[in-house]
C-alpha cells in the first residue's frame, strides 16, 4: 500500500500495540512519544511505515475492526473512534460504519448492536443512570 516501507520490525505487532493505546487514550490523548514507547519502534521507522500519527491510527483502527472486534467484543475503541474522529475524518467514519455492519451481521440484528453499544456506554459511566 505504501512506499518505502522498512521491514526492520514486526509491523503487525506495532499496529496491535498502537490500537491498544488509542483505545485507552483516544487519538488526541496519544502522542508520538507514547506510540514510540508502547510499540518499541523508532520514531523514524514509524513515520516511514505509516506516514503520520493519523496513518498509524487508521492502520490500528482497521486492525481492531478486522481482528479484535468480533473476537474480544470490546467496543471501547469503536465508541472512541465514532465520538472523537468520525465527524472530522471520512476514513474513520467508513471504518466505524464497517465495524457496525460487522457487528450487525455477527449479532443477527441491528437492535443487538444498538443494545451492546448502549450497554457499553452505561458501563463506561460506571453503571450509573441505570435506575
Amino acid at each position, binding site marked *: 500500500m505504501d*512506499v518505502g516501507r522498512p521491514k526492520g520490525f514486526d509491523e503487525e505487532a506495532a499496529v496491535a500495540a498502537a490500537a491498544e493505546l488509542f483505545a485507552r487514550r483516544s487519538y488526541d490523548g496519544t502522542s*508520538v512519544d507514547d506510540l514510540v514507547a508502547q510499540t518499541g519502534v523508532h*520514531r*523514524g521507522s514509524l513515520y*516511514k511505515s505509516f506516514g503520520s500519527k493519523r496513518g498509524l491510527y487508521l492502520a490500528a483502527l482497521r486492525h481492531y475492526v478486522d481482528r479484535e472486534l468480533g473476537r474480544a467484543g470490546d467496543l471501547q475503541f469503536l465508541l472512541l473512534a465514532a465520538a472523537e474522529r468520525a465527524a472530522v475524518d471520512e476514513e474513520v467514519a467508513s471504518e466505524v460504519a464497517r465495524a457496525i455492519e460487522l457487528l450487525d451481521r455477527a449479532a443477527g440484528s441491528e437492535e443487538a448492536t444498538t443494545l451492546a453499544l448502549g450497554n457499553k456506554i452505561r458501563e463506561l459511566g460506571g453503571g450509573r443512570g441505570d435506575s
Partner: protein
Amino acid sequence: MATVEIEGGDLVVRVEGMDKLWALKSSLTIPLANVRGATNDPGMVSEPKGVRTAGTYVPGVVVAGSFRRDGERVFWDVRDPAKAVVIELADEQYARLVVQVDDPRATVELVEQAAGTRKD
C-alpha cells in the same frame, strides 16, 4: 518558523524571517504525490539529529537546516518544539521535514487531507 501551503499539485513550505539564514534555505516545493502525511510531534525535537550537513544547530534554541541520520536526510526549522510538525515524504531529497508552524492542528489537517486525496 515556516508556512505550509498547498499550491496546485504541490506542497510549498516557506521558511520565514531570519530562519532563512539559519536554515540556508528559503522554500521547498514537494509534489503532493510525494507527501505521505503530517503529525504535530513536540517530542521529535528530542530525537538525535545526526550530522548537520547545512544550517544551524544550537541545542535548546534553534534547529535549522539539513541533517543526515541513519542514511536519511531531514530538514529542520524548529525553535518551539510544541509547534513542530513532521511532514513525511517519499522519493524526495529529504525523508521528512520538521518545521515549526503557527497552527500545528490546521497544518496537519491541511496536509493530511491533501495527501489523502491523491491516494487512489
